Structures are given as structure tokens and as C-alpha cells.
């Protein structure tokens, strides 16, 4: 299984990290989408398990959660899905999940099963750094890497503590707010990248509102090591629910657009 470090060390340009909700709009289509993303040049995958009350997500991802839940996705099915993906290609997979789903599954068992499926890290959207000890032992026992979020309003003291506990990459939130496409990259992100770069050697990847290839170029130029593209892609799923071929073709085109922009910058 490839680690984040091996992957980031192997890259000559920035990391392209698409985000999808597992099972959106259904498990089979979702698998086709993820394969397409890998073939279009994804370096790392960020995948979400759908939750009934995703408070850190905007309307686009919330609708994806609802579609995936309606198609019957459970945490156990999501783990099987991850196994299928890693069998298709050895690619680092970060999970983005809400705490209650892991809590109910059993924290230790979840981390072990996720590691066995070939996953790399579990980012719990509603478990902040102050409480990570609740999952630390289970993560270590499963041999997983760690990814934590930093936001533009995170204090220096908290930022220090977060990067110290992060081994995979720092999930750098570009905005004060929730996930969703935006016209411009927030002017809060460059100062945050600078703060992080001064504080850690761990790769810094930027997400929330990376909607256009130019956004990716801008944050990579500012020193980031990768970009996470979510709502922009999930919106394509939403807009093409009745034409899956077009859905998959447009996702491929969009990701290749990001890939080219990143590689040619």
C-alpha cells in the first residue's frame, strides 16, 4: 500500500485530489466515477461516507449524501467500496467522515477494517484536535496516517498542535465556511499556506472552494502541495443524473483540465 509520503515524494507537480461521496448516486456508478478520476490523473482520493446531518458541508455535498443514503450506502458497504478501489489501483485514500458513524461502528474495528481495505487516513469532520485522543490509539493500532483540518481562523497555538499530530497532509480549508464551489479563491488562503509552510514539512493541501483550474494554480503557486476538488465534481453528478455516460465524460474532462493546469503551471 502506497503511503502519502511515497506519493508526494514521487510528484513533480502539485497533487490533484478529487473528493466524492461513496455511493453517489449509487455504488456501481460511483465506482465508475472513481475509476474515471484515477484514469484522468488523480494522485490521491478523498472519499466521504454519507451522513444524515453533514454540518461541515454545503448544499452540493449534502445532496450527494442524500443520494448515496437513498441508494443504501452504509459504512460497511463504503469499506467494501474502498477495497474495490485499491484493488483497481494502489492509490492513497483519505476518508472524510462524521464521528457518529465511526462511533457506532466501533472506533477500533472501523480503523482496522479501513486499513485492511487499503485506506490511508481518516479525517473526522466533527472531531477537533482537542479530542483526537479518543481515536488516537485505534489509528495507531491500525497503522493509519493522520490528516487534520486547519482553517483561516485557527490560532497559532492550535495550528502548532494540529501540525504536530498530522503525519499525512494538512487539510487546509480555504474559507471561513462550509464546502461548496466559489467564483474566487478566498484571500484568506495565501496567508494560511505561508503560516503552515513555516510550521511544518508535512504536505499542505487546500480544499473548500477549489472550483476552477486557475484556483488550483493560484494556491500551488502560493506554496501548497496539492488541491482537493469536491463540490465542483459532485455538481457534475447532480446535473447529469439521467445521463451517466455524459456524467462520467464531464468528470473526466474537468479533472483533465485541472491536471493540465497543474502540470503546465
Amino acid at each position, binding site marked *: 500500500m502506497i503511503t502519502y509520503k511515497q506519493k508526494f515524494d514521487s510528484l513533480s507537480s502539485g497533487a490533484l485530489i478529487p473528493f466524492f461521496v461513496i455511493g453517489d448516486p449509487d455504488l456501481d456508478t460511483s465506482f465508475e466515477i472513481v475509476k474515471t478520476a484515477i484514469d484522468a490523473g488523480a494522485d490521491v482520493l478523498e472519499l466521504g461516507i454519507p*451522513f*444524515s*446531518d*453533514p*454540518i*461541515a*458541508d*454545503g*448544499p452540493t455535498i*449534502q*445532496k450527494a449524501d*442524500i443520494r448515496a*443514503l437513498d441508494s443504501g450506502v*452504509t*459504512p*460497511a458497504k463504503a469499506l467494501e467500496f474502498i477495497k474495490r478501489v485499491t484493488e483497481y489501483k494502489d492509490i492513497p485514500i483519505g476518508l472524510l467522515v462524521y*464521528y*457518529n*458513524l465511526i*462511533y*457506532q*461502528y466501533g472506533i477500533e474495528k472501523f480503523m482496522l477494517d479501513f486499513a485492511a481495505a487499503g485506506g490511508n487516513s481518516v479525517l473526522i*469532520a*466533527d*472531531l*477537533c*484536535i*482537542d*479530542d483526537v485522543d479518543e481515536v488516537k490509539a485505534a489509528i495507531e493500532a491500525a497503522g493509519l496516517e493522520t490528516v*487534520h*483540518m*486547519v*482553517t483561516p*481562523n*485557527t*490560532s497559532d497555538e*492550535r495550528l502548532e498542535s*494540529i501540525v504536530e499530530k498530522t503525519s499525512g497532509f494538512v487539510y487546509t*480549508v480555504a*474559507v*471561513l*465556511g*462550509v464546502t461548496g464551489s466559489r467564483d474566487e479563491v478566498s484571500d484568506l488562503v495565501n496567508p494560511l499556506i505561508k503560516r503552515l509552510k513555516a510550521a511544518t514539512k508535512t504536505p499542505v493541501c487546500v480544499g473548500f472552494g477549489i472550483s476552477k483550474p486557475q484556483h488550483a494554480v493560484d494556491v500551488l503557486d502560493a506554496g501548497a502541495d496539492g488541491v482537493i476538488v469536491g463540490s465542483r465534481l459532485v455538481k457534475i453528478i447532480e446535473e447529469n443524473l439521467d445521463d451517466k455516460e455524459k456524467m462520467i465524460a464531464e468528470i473526466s474532462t474537468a479533472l483533465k483540465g485541472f491536471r493540465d493546469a497543474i502540470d503546465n503551471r
Partner: protein
Amino acid sequence: MKHTGRYGDFGGYYVPEVLIPALEEIEKAFYHFKDDAVFKEELESLRADYLGRETPLYFAKRFSEYVGYKVYLKREDLVHGGAHKGNNTLGQGLLAKYMGKTKLIAETGAGQHGLATSMIGALFDFDTKIFMGSVDVARQSVNVHKMKLCGASVVPVSAGSGTLKDAINDALRYWCSNLSDTFYLFGTAAGPHPFPEIVRYFQTVIGIEARKQILVKENRLPDMIVACVGGGSNAIGLFSGFLEDESVKIVGVEAGGKGIDTTHHCATLTKGRVGVFHGAKGYLLQDEVGQVFESESISAGLDYPGVGPEHSYLKASGRAEYVPANDEEVLDAFEILIKTEGIIPALESSHALAYLISMRGKLDPNTVVVANLSGRGDKDVGIVEEHRPLK
């Protein structure tokens, strides 16, 4: 954060990183101003002259005769706005003002907390935005109208089930994007720390007054205190005055809806499992894998799949007992209180009364019970009419 916000293992602040600075700011301001002489004086003055406190502790003589033991009602239905909600919105609104915030946001289910927030928004000249499920907007049009009259804007939330939990989700999301000038005035003693503690602090006036009043009227502590529990703010307000009095039995009454063996109820403490939801660890109505259920009850004010963390703690520690009352028992209680006392209780408060009626003839006649009449029922007359048309 300076404090962990834990009640035993329950509570905490399970929120995305982006909200931590906002919660820290509120926590800091709360601990500062709650002991600030100017703040305290203004709060006391407005409690008396604006909310109409203290509220009476009323010996309900004919209702007592009906149940066969002595029942005192803490008359929170007489608080300005018609429910205990005003205790919290006045306190938090004042805190927001002292913090220099200019905008208030709040979630609401039935509209009672939205209205109580809009009222305070007008009083202190805040720009007020109320998030309300689109289903609730449609079925609570009178309260929506009242909020707008107070100058608030009402944001219908259609995502998810279009009810209270979705309104909270959207209010949290909006808050993430508008932290600098906006105060989130949380409506119940649930959610992430420091909200449960703040709401408890401003509602504890109920229990402090009731304890003092019953000692005057009966010259002893009550044998039992009873309140309805949704998120649990009126209940924790009453209970907090008596937690140290070990002889006082504490009973919280949840909404049993159409029955706790159906999926149509919100008896979180009776039927839920411990989980993490809306920022806190506590009992929760959820499916096997942890997806949160829609709750259902005749009283929208109790319609919440979670519950405040201190109630989870009081249940786990055995200090309080939590029981359900179903819709039919609640409608009976609503009618019986009106017929015996000429008081129209909120359907929420009628859950506490339903428990009292379930104990009819089972207690010694000298038993003294204090029940929280948390709100008035004018808002519910139409709902009762639908279920039980007058002949």
C-alpha cells in the same frame, strides 16, 4: 476552550475546526459577563420588567383533587412571549449585545424559540435571521408572521427533512461563514459546549425561584419535580434548583408520540443509544449504523432526535428518571388542566401533566409535586382541534 463542557462522559464540543474560535469567544465572554455587575444588573432589571419574573408557583387545587395529591405549577407560561424560552433569549441576547455583535441567528422548530429570539432582536435592535424547516414554516404560519412583525427574516430550510435538525444544520453552516458579527443564539440546553452550560445558566432561574417558593408555601422541599424534555432547557432550568436535594425525585417526560415501539416519537432518553450529534455526545435516536432519525411528536417543541448532555448524564447516573407520554395521554392532560383550572397549557408542558395524571391515585395525598408549566397553549389550539374536534 477553557472548559471541556463535559457532564460525565457526555457533552463536549464535537464541531469542525472552523467553529472552535467562535465557541471560544462565546465561552470567554460568558464567563466574563455572568459575573459582571453591570451585566447582572441589566439582566435582573429586564427579567423583572420585560419578562415579568418572578413567575408564580401556583397551587393547582382542582387539578390536585383530580390526581389525588398536591400539585404546584411553576407558571413559566406567564413569561413574556408565553414560554420559558424568553429566559434564555434575553440572557443570550444581552450577552451578544455586550460582546458587540450586531446580528443574531437562531434555529426554530415550532417557532417558539424563533419568536423569543425575534422579540429580543427587536428589543436590542439586532439584525435577526431565523432558520426554520420548510415543513415547519408551512405548519406554523402564525409564528412566522409574528417573527416577521418583530423585524426578523425567516429562512426556510428545505434540505433533509425540512424540520428542526435541518434548521440547526443550516444555522451552523451559516454561522461558519459569518462568525465575526453574528451570534448564534442556541435555543436549548444541547449542542456543543458552551451552549448547554449557557442555556442552563439562564434557565436556572426557574429552579431557584421554585425552590424558594415551595419552601415558603409548604415549609418543606417537594417530594418530586416534573418537567417535559425535548432538548431539555425548561427541564434543566427546574431540575438545577434541586439536584443537591437528594430527597427530591426528579422526573423528565419525553414525547412518546404515537408510541415508543413505533418510529413516530422523540423519546431519546427512553429509546436512544449514545452517539455524537450537533456537537455533543449523548443519547440519540439513530439507526443501527448511526444515521440520525427524524423524530415525531404532536408537540413540535419536543421534536428533536438528540437531548441535552446533562440529561444524558442525569439518566446514566440515575439521579433523574425519564419516562415517555404518548400523544393521546398528552391530549387528555391538555383537556383536564383546562377543565380543572382554566389554564391552557402548551402541548409540550402537557407531557409533564400527563405523567402526573398517570400517577393519579398512586401517591399519598400529602405528596407535594412541582411541575413546570413551561409554556401556554394558545399556539396549540388548532392542533388539538384537528385531533379532537369539539362536538
